């Protein structure tokens, strides 16, 4: 189920950079504790498969995600970022994800302007019952990032994957 | 590569929990030849780095006469020291640069009575000199060590203090700020005990003091009242330092670089500095 990497993948933002043959994307997944994290659990317990490229970070609520986290992930190891929370109206804290939604849109648009492909940072609503959807989302994000190639923008010098 | 700022690796040999928030780290350079060459005077400091956290300035709290290791006593205060307390274990590696700064005038004080006045973690730099003086006992006359802390639990080097007490010619006076049930020694702040209990001889005595700024302030005043001349009072001054080399400009007080011209000053020298510490 490992994301398939064909040879000669170029970085979409920096076409001069060609991915090494053994390159595998790193996706940082920031999941809300109450829905998406439980959803990803369900994916596992239901034995559904999804790409192992995702590294999951659990947060109490999607509104805990400061745009800073996304910037930080992109600046260090991530080739792509997935942020997932409860469906609108289902927030454990009643309205957290409504606040988060606003921030996500602005962050996404700003990153797009400074030269990141819009598929680098993706968002999803996954409930605790949607194990299959979680697998689908991760698959889509990974496939997208594989198409975009490695991220080489503003990486910290001393990072090694 | 900034050649001056590169540390050498040292190993933590032992960790001694002195008080709830002070630990003594016994260190030894990984390179044995470096350890042999490493020599310092009491009162000097090193730049201690926990790699992956940051660099901090600590005085060496043991004497060069005790060979094969050196101690740093570290109180938990900021980000790096908190990391040192939580992350650093026996056998781990740390980076050490040094020794830097000037030192207690070990020659000038020869043949004199010594009065040590320490408060809290301020005993650490004094310990280096006390150990040095004990190991060269014949060079110095009588010692008095006045040491105070907030509570009895905050007294550092408890075992060593017991040993000092056994030595002849050393008078140890301990004090804590507030009375405690099991506490049998003095109660009261250091300057008060200094004037009321210690009552030091003035002639032929050198005073060496270190402690929190507020203690230093009042101790210096009491020493004045007791009639010590400022030239005979020696203190060590701590400022925020980063390079230890007289370059980074952080420890400037007037045209003095505390890291190069200090940290040891006499009270007379301190009086001449602008009031910025």
């Amino acid at each position, binding site marked *: 189920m490992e994301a398939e990497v064909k040879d000669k993948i170029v970085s979409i933002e*920096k076409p001069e950079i060609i991915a090494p043959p053994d390159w595998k994307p790193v996706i940082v997944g920031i999941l809300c504790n109450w829905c998406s994290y439980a959803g990803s659990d369900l994916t596992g317990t239901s034995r559904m498969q999804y790409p192992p490229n995702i590294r999951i970070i659990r947060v109490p609520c999607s509104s805990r995600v400061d745009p800073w986290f996304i910037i930080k992930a992109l600046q260090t190891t991530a080739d792509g970022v997935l942020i997932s929370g409860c469906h609108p109206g289902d927030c454990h804290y009643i309205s957290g994800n409504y606040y988060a939604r606003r921030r996500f849109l602005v962050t996404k648009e700003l990153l797009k*302007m400074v*030269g990141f492909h819009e598929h680098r940072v993706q968002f999803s609503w996954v409930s605790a019952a949607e194990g299959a959807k979680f697998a689908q989302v991760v698959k889509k994000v990974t496939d997208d990032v594989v198409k975009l190639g490695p991220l080489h*923008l503003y990486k910290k010098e001393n990072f090694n994957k | 590569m900034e050649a001056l700022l590169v540390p050498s690796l040292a190993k933590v040999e032992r960790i001694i929990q002195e008080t709830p928030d002070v630990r003594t780290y016994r260190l030894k350079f990984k390179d044995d030849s470096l350890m042999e060459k490493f020599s310092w005077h009491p009162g000097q400091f090193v730049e201690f780095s926990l790699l992956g956290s940051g660099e901090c300035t600590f005085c060496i709290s043991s004497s060069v006469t005790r060979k094969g290791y050196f101690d740093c006593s570290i109180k938990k205060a900021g980000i790096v020291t908190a990391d040192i307390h939580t992350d650093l274990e026996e056998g781990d590696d740390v980076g050490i640069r040094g020794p830097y700064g000037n030192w207690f005038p070990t020659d000038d004080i020869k043949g004199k009575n010594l009065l040590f006045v320490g408060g809290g973690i301020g005993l650490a730099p004094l310990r280096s000199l006390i150990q040095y003086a004990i190991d060269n006992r014949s060079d110095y006359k009588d010692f008095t060590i006045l040491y105070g802390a907030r509570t009895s639990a905050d007294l550092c080097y408890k075992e060593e203090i017991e040993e000092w007490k056994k030595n002849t010619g050393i008078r140890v006076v301990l004090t804590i700020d507030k009375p405690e049930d099991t506490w049998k020694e003095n109660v009261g702040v250091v300057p008060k005990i200094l004037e009321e209990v210690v009552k030091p001889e003035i002639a032929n005595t050198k005073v060496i003091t270190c402690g929190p700024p507020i203690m230093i302030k009042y101790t210096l005043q009491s020493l004045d009242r007791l009639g010590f001349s400022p030239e005979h009072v020696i203190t060590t001054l701590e400022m925020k330092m980063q390079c230890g080399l007289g370059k980074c400009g952080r420890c400037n007080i007037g045209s003095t670089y505390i890291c190069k011209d200090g940290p040891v000053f006499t009270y007379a020298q301190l009086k001449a500095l602008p009031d910025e510490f």
Partner: protein
Amino acid sequence: MDYSKEIRDIAAKLFADGKIDVFVGYRMNGFDDNQVPVVITDPKEVSTLVFTEKSVFNLTNYLKTDHTRGKRVGLIVKGCDSRSLNLLLTESQVKRDRLYIIGIACEGVVDDKGVKMQNCTECIVPDAVVFDEMLGSPRGKKDYIVNADIRALAEKGLVERREYFEEIFENCIRCNACRHSCPLCYCAKCCIDQETASLYNGSNTASSAFHALMTWSLHLAGRCVDCRNCEKACPSHLPLHLLHKQNEKVIFENFQNHLAGVEEGERGAFYKYSLKDPDDFIM
């Protein structure tokens, strides 16, 4: 637009009545026709006050310094300045009853070279929104215009935009002047200045500039009032407004025409939400 005389009279009166301890205004810089802010505590200095179209700096920045904290302050605000003041008030950074605000119906200010500032040509709220006293005749709100630079950038391709911004981040020297001169950056310790090693970002690389400027602008999104203090302070002359204007545009277009600090008591765009906010970008 010259209200120097009126402002001197008002300031003198305020001092005479004992209503203020400090007055923050502008004076001539003493060598050419440009002005610098001045913090006055002595009523005798009132005569140095001026206000013309050269009065550029947003004075609400001084509300976070020791000279004004806890004191009664007289202050001159233009349209954009008053928006930032409005936000400081709603975010409980200053107390309204300690301020005496001279609002200006602003006709736009000019930069050092005498050219009208870009933010003034696109100004939405020229009149001060909070004030105790208004100078000039108010002309009401204007329509929102998308910044010309943002429009130009939107037409460029991904690689072109990336190259342009890479240049910006590479030329940043990480002095943090933008942040210090921003009236709305009042945090005691900024999250960008983390000293913890795994979060440290103080090196002078494009990467750390990207981190600092992006985080900074996103923390100001929905609050930035486009006063351009940051650009004035930037020693590298970076077009920092691009980041803020982009956020402003997205917020205006998607969140019920929200503009920071225009309504009294209204908080930044990220302090509220609507059920109708766009959702289609989320899977």
